[in-house]
């Protein structure tokens, strides 16, 4: 078992505990020991908090990173927003002058940021530390024939110089992770579009989501796989809103990758909290029926 500090953020533990349950259920089966962090706050939010005061944003983020530094562990995140904040902080604080400014503030609470803990999104952690083959070996019921449209979202990939995850123009990580479950990844035409959640106002996000959902539906995918809880909200409640607004039959159920992995590893459908979703990934149930026969 390799130990990593788990930075859960706000949205997943508070709004989507099913996703956290899935993470805690799947990672140990892949040889990763989850170490919880005491005293972690919001990452903080890379959109509005950062827009309000970037120095305070960096300082609070640096404090969170010091919690993992105290344990001598690298940190993993389960939300693209947290990944963006913590990765950018790690990147920016390589600048000594800025690090001094932040440490000047951290000194108020007797902390010092040293830059010794790396930050990784859980998807990259699994790709790099576990490997696709071990994911495949952990699968108890291969999801053969399941068509999974892909939504990467923005902050897993960009800015690539900071995130260092994958090529943002032709990323592979989600496709390969989906394939490891035996399912078929589907790259719809507008795969690169943003979910729009971080844009203030209605007009831009509504139009963008409409275009995104249109090409998702052209592929007739069973589910839409993703790794960000913010995007997830846009595709669950948000999808219903857009369907009504544009009078379209949009209905592809979104699914957080680690819930899909948990299901493929044998966790029963009804234990994964799907009943709380607006669009339920009922296509998965056929794999339970097969297993029961």
């Amino acid at each position, binding site marked *: 078992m390799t130990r990593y500090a788990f930075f859960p953020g706000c949205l997943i533990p508070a709004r989507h505990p099913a996703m956290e349950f899935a993470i805690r259920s799947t990672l140990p089966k892949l040889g990763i020991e989850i170490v919880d962090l005491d005293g972690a706050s919001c990452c903080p939010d890379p959109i509005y908090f950062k827009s309000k005061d970037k120095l305070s944003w960096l300082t609070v983020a640096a404090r969170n990173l010091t919690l993992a530094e105290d344990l001598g562990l690298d940190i993993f995140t389960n939300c693209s927003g947290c990944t963006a904040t913590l990765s950018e902080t790690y990147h920016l604080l390589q600048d000594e002058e800025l690090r001094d400014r932040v440490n*000047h503030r951290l000194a108020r609470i007797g902390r010092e940021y040293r830059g010794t803990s790396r930050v990784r999104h859980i998807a990259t952690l699994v790709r790099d530390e576990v490997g696709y083959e071990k994911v495949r070996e952990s699968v108890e019921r291969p999801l053969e024939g399941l068509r999974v449209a892909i939504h990467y979202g923005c902050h897993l990939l960009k800015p690539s110089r900071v995130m260092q995850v994958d090529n943002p123009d032709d990323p592979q990580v989600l496709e390969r992770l989906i394939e490891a479950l035996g399912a078929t990844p589907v790259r719809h035409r507008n795969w690169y579009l943003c979910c729009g959640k971080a844009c203030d106002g209605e007009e831009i996000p509504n139009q963008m989501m409409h275009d995104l959902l249109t090409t998702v539906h052209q592929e007739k995918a069973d589910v839409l796989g993703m790794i960000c809880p913010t995007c997830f909200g846009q595709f669950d409640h948000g999808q219903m809103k857009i369907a009504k607004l544009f009078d379209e039959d949009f209905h592809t159920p979104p699914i957080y990758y680690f819930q899909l992995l948990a299901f493929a590893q044998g966790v029963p459908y009804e234990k994964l909290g799907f009943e709380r979703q607006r669009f339920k990934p009922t296509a998965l149930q056929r794999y339970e029926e097969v297993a029961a026969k």
Partner: protein
Amino acid sequence: MASRSDDNDIVRVDFAFKRELAQKIEGNLANFCYQCGACVGDCPATRYSPAFNPREIMLKVLYGLEAELLGPDSVLWQCTNCYGCHERCPQEVKPVEVIISLKNMLADRGLAPPAADKVIQTFMGNGRTVPDNPAIDKQRAKFGLPPLRPVPMDEILVLLEPEIEEAGGS
């Protein structure tokens, strides 16, 4: 304040504005912009709202056209924060970060949108961006998860106090 002067339509560079922006973290990066427009083609906000154009925003920054950038209901909030411009810029201007610096200036002037104030307010209360609610721990218990861990707000609030001893902003 920078302006297009009334009499002969000459744009005068507002250096005071540019100095204030340069005080912000990564605020001075626009100086390297050579107006190639690589940021525009990949910008989802531009695609849906012609009023939002990162190249034009960078040009206004170069001139220091404060009145066009920092008013109420600023177009800057239409940025989707997708970081496509950061990815594309051959000069490493990071337009999105310049825009965020401008948003910091808007916030200094009390012009942040209600959504931003709400996030900060919630954070100042419990250290998270999701408000406290007894239903959260009940939901967690259904998945066998322990209650949310407390955030030491005393530490956080001390960190957020402004820097009186230092000159310059954030």
